């Protein structure tokens, strides 16, 4: 079907495309919000355990903060030695 034969609005698909990308964006935001809220919920219990790196107790027992248990460094605690620094080669 040629453009010429299309109804007038179909030749100017700007509005439908805009709503399509808007829909995609809204969908993206929705997924982001849902995943964030789920992550927060599952992290809520874990976040109850504070980072104890730097205390004598953690030197013996290890730190039970969720980032430390995941092998990552807690950026908030300068005494945290879990995980690694990012050092460009």
């Amino acid at each position, binding site marked *: 079907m040629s453009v010429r034969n299309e109804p007038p609005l179909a030749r100017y698909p700007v509005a439908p495309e*805009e709503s399509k*990308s*808007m829909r995609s*964006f809204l969908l993206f935001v929705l997924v982001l919000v849902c995943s964030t809220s789920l992550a927060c919920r599952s992290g809520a219990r*874990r976040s*109850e*355990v*504070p980072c*104890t790196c*730097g205390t*004598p107790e*953690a*030197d*013996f*027992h*290890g730190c*039970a903060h*969720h980032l430390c*248990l995941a092998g990552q*460094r807690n*950026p908030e*605690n*300068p*005494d945290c*030695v879990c*995980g*690694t*620094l*990012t*050092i*460009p080669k």
Partner: protein
Amino acid sequence: MRLPCASLALLVALALPAAAQEKIKLKSGKVVSGRATAYDDDRQILSFRTEAGEEVQWPLDQLDSRSVYLIYASVIPKENGKGQLQLANFARDAGLYEHAARRYGYAKEADPSLAADVEREGAQLRRVAAEACLAKAREARQKGDEKEAQKWLATLLERLPNEPQAAEAAAMVEEGYAREANARDDALEQKLSDLLEKDLKKGKEHYDKMIERTRDGLTARNDGKAESLWKQALKDGDVVLEEIERLAKKYPDDARVQEGAPKYRQLTIDQMVEVHLHLASQYTVKSSFKAAMKEANAALALDPKSGEALAARARIEQASNEGLIDW
């Protein structure tokens, strides 16, 4: 389309600086935020761009030993057995005992031919860790903080029961544990002395038994005996809680009872949480993770906000998923 792109760009721009910052600690205790830009292995110098945009270079001897450990940990791959062994020794000498134990495990895994070295250095780790534990207990006792002293003694007995220092720790527990635990309810005992002679007598007897059995579990020479003593201590605790409820109902208008009951309840719960965590620790060492988790959950059922119980549960989960760090 412009709006979503702009929003996304804004989100990314907001997220980047937070993600990019890392903190490094100098020997002086000063903490600097920024980002490592390079590490010169030969000269042992870390290049760092501070939050303010300043480029600085620090020889490792200017950094806090934890930061030095972190740098070494960042540049030595897990597959480098000898490197991990050296890193473990560094961690041990810096007092990072748990990290040292983990690194010895990595070293052995990466290079099984290092097993004898790992065993020798691991024995040294256990020795210095036990000595450090005992030193902490002595220091706390000297400061008059017997509760802190008992915490370190329990750590030594649970984690390093075969070290020579364990004998002295057991003697210190024997001598100080009950004294410290009994002192917790001294004020209540004075206030409720007449009730303790009559209605509270049964509860008090079980309370004292619970403390004795906790102590005896800590100094028991074998795991089975310790387990049995701690389980009996928990039964004592249940009786105490029942007695407290009974008295609170029996004397609804007695202000002393109504005021004292929650305090005795809390003391009892604290003691029971401690016992559950001793059991959890013992089961974890034996890799009985289900049983350990059950004890941690029981502790949390009594005190959902107990930081020690929450941490214990997280550690048990970790050990159950990834294996126990062998000291």
